[in-house]
């Protein structure tokens, strides 16, 4: 397995209660966060080091409450633009 650097920017829009989201890689739960920052123009940059075999993998950012909305932008794999479904090589 080779290590790869994955990043994704998570934005949120909310008013009273912040949205809560979880991050999964290939169905494995990595973390759960509350997005407590106000304003739609700020974001959390999730930096995920993935040690995976070459092939297709999936990153999922899933909101788990009904407060506000989240969206993801600017996914990169090893510094180059990618998508939530990403492919790794050696």
């Amino acid at each position, binding site marked *: *397995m080779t290590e790869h650097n994955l990043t994704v*920017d998570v934005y949120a829009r909310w008013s009273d209660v*912040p949205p*809560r989201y979880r*991050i*999964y*890689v*290939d*169905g*494995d*739960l*990595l*973390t*759960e*966060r*509350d*997005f*407590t*920052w106000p304003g*739609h*123009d*700020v*974001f*959390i*940059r*999730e*930096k*995920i*080091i*993935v*040690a*995976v075999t070459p092939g297709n993998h999936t990153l999922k950012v899933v909101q788990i409450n009904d407060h506000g909305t989240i969206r993801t932008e600017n996914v990169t794999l090893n510094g180059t633009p990618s998508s939530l479904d990403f492919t790794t090589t050696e």
Partner: protein
Amino acid sequence: MFLTELAEPTLLVIYPGRFQPFHKGHYAVYEYLTGKFGRNNVYIATSNKTDNAKSPFTFAEKAYFMQLTGVPADRIVQATQPYQIQNVLQSGNINVANPANTVVIFAVSEKDMAEDPRFSFAPKKDGSAPYFQPLRDIKQTESMDKHGYIMTVPTFDFTVAGQPMRSGTELRKLYSTADQQERQEIIKDLFGKYTTEAEQIMNNKIPAEQAEPVAEAISQFVPAQKTSQDGYYKLLAYRYRQNPGLLSAKEKQELHDYIQNLKTVKESGGTGVVASKKQANDPRYSTSLTKDVRPGQINKSLKAFNLAEQEREPYQQAVDRLTQHEIDHLSSLIDEIKQRITTEKLPAKYVEALKQRIEKLQAERAKLAFNP
């Protein structure tokens, strides 16, 4: 020759500016001027000069915005130097039949008057009056070949997206941080109506601000071994427990690597948020920004959300298995060596070396077996 002496004097009012972009505050000034001097006498002059940040819009784009607000196309003049009358006239849009019979007035905002040294009206070095003069009494003006007059016009306050807006700089900042819906509202507020062309121009010239992240959250992912692989290694382990001799050297090595890897997986957990120096004192970092999964919680969460194909082997169990595997491996090596000593006719010095090797292996095994 004063205006009062001119035969049918003509009035020419120029409203010059950068207009980055033109907006309804500018349009209010234009309306003010046309109300005062007549629609046919007022022109807006602007250049095609652009730079990336402060002046992103070309003349054509500015002219589009002007017409969107309601300025007639034939009242818009392109001039490289909009404050110079000769340069404005070179555009060809304005027809001045007799300069000696025409008075020119430049409309300048209070803000520009305060900031631009061109409008100090101080006498020249030779003591003569400069070309531009303040407009005090229109009846006491001279023709455009002698002087141009500066008229101060008020700045009209207005709101965009509910926020008071006084300058293009403020507006560009607001637009760059707005989302799509807000941008459409801004365009309506700016020009009185929304068009997709206006949005395209604005989006091209005022890109979304590249915000810095408020937090950088670092997580590490090392996947668990797949169920099918688990089954294979469990079978190897079963066979090994029955009789180590049933496994080939390659299979033994595979099993060893698998157990080592299990250990690695369990030790690589952990996520967190790295705050910058500026962010370090922010209570949101120490309170509710992050609710990371704690070590050991992954298995519980996977099970709770029905995401796990098979529950992973607990860490301590894997370590115990690794330890037992290594003890067994050392025992088999010791047995092999003992067998060689008894069955093979080896030179005495080799036998001695092998016995020393046995002692070392036994010491290693004793160390592993010690479990306080």
